[in-house]
């Protein structure tokens, strides 16, 4: 038994293709990239050792600092939004819609699988002001407000990016958190209710602590995704206006 399932040749045959592909195309370039940080130059002119100069430059270059600050702001905002809205949705599914939530879960999950570029172009049109106003500005007019040039200023462009990325992924986090909430035993909630725990206290002292682990993992997944963001912002604003949304 040990001999057959521990056969070195078989292990190599099964493992090598994946390991080689992965090492050559991901691990090596990553180390290569790390190595580049200590050199100056480019592939054509060749490289010279520059020590920590690049890092100093990174932290003193105002553009880089702005991009880093933007990434952090984006990650914090969107992660909070994704997980919070997802959690509210999951609560809605579990405690209000219950059995009937299947269809709504399916519908809210759908934007997750949509291509980012398509969603970005769609949102560009949704928030448009000129030459013709999109649904959002039309709605603002209908409600008696002033139309907003969403992509004209950094702060409003950021708002659109945040709204778009939360719209895109709230269904995903709802489903993720739903799986955790459903696991909370009905008995626990019932007995807390019998003990007189009302809505807020029930949520605060029973539901929240019991769904804490899955909430934390959702936060980690979300941070992991938002810190690496590229395509949604590139396709929506390409870093503009100016470079106010450059990550």
């Amino acid at each position, binding site marked *: 038994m040990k001999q057959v399932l521990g056969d070195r040749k078989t292990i190599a045959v099964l493992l090598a293709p994946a390991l080689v592909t992965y090492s050559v195309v991901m691990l090596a370039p990553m180390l*290569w990239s790390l190595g580049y940080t200590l050199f100056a130059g480019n592939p054509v002119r060749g490289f010279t050792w520059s020590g920590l100069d690049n890092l100093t430059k990174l932290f003193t270059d105002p553009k880089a600092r702005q991009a880093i600050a933007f990434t952090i702001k984006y990650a914090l905002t969107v992660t909070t939004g994704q997980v919070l809205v997802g959690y509210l949705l999951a609560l809605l599914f579990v405690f209000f819609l219950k059995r009937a939530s299947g269809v709504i*879960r399916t519908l809210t999950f759908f934007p997750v*699988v949509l291509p980012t570029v398509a969603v970005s172009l769609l949102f560009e*049109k949704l928030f448009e002001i000129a030459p013709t106003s999109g649904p959002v500005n039309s709605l603002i007019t209908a409600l008696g407000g002033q139309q907003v040039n969403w992509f004209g200023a950094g702060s409003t462009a950021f708002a659109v990016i945040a709204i778009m990325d939360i719209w895109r992924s709230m269904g995903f986090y709802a489903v993720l958190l739903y799986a955790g909430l459903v696991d909370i035993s009905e008995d626990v909630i019932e007995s807390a209710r019998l003990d007189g725990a009302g809505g807020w206290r029930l949520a605060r002292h029973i539901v929240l602590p019991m769904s804490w682990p899955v909430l934390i993992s959702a936060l980690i997944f979300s941070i992991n995704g938002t810190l690496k963001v590229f395509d949604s912002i590139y396709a929506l604003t390409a870093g503009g206006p100016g470079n106010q949304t450059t990550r």
Partner: protein
Amino acid sequence: MSAPTRPPAGPAATAPGAPPPAATPEAQPPAAGRRRRPARHWRKWPLVLATAILLVIEIYPLIWLLLGSLKTQQEFMNRPTWALPQDWTNFDNYREAWDSGVARNLLNSVMAVFPSLAIIVVFGTAAGFALEVMVFKGRGALLLVFLAGIMIPSQMILLPLFSAYFKTHLTGTVWPLILTYSATGLPLTVFMMATYFRAVPRELFEAATIDGASALRSFRSVAFPMMTNAIFTVGLVQFFFLWNDLLFAMTFTSGAGHAELATVQVGLLNFQGRFGAVQYGPTMAAICVNVLITLVLYLFLNQRVMKGMAAGAVKG
């Protein structure tokens, strides 16, 4: 991470005829009698409204997109944005979008994504099997090495890969995409497959071994067929990641001289430029075509997609 969606263990527990558990969290005093029902009804309203608003927010942009793809430029300019298209059979926008290279882009995407998927699935399953079922020293560490790949940002490997492909004269072919996609899909796939194999009783492979199967044979004839479902789920999740990829596709196919390699996403992004921002109809039709492919897949396989995506959540 192995968190499939389960049906809620909710009202099913109550005996038939018994009042259903209160939908609002507040405990209902049993003596409330007749007043109880309208009061509860009243409380439900905000939540019903919230659900309705939620659905509008999720669905309306997509409906607007679909309607927009049927409108003419005049309608966009002169009629309110929520107006219905005047001619429901006006498919000119689609024709225009199709003629401008959407078909070529679709073909490119298929050529890049499906070979990668095949490689990912076969290599990933084999590695998952080796790391979970086979016995050797250091397999835990190796699994961690693969797992680390999930955390590597694509931007970090982009530049070295670009110069490597350039030096090996692969630039200008579909190979850079296939290689990169295969490699980036592997960490998550290996990890997920290893998790699936962990749930399989070891006795199964031991029995196969006793029956005289070599490890390779057990993999081919026992493990692989048994994992069909899992493989399909993993493949589906990877399909969406690869199909929707923009960063790699943009870097490896949009350079000067090989625009004919552009994938669907790159094509869509360029589409905007080709027509200028003012040609609404064709742009919307192109977005629609792009959305439709994922929509159809999702319509048929939504439960599986949701489960798989939740299991692969680490990808972020």
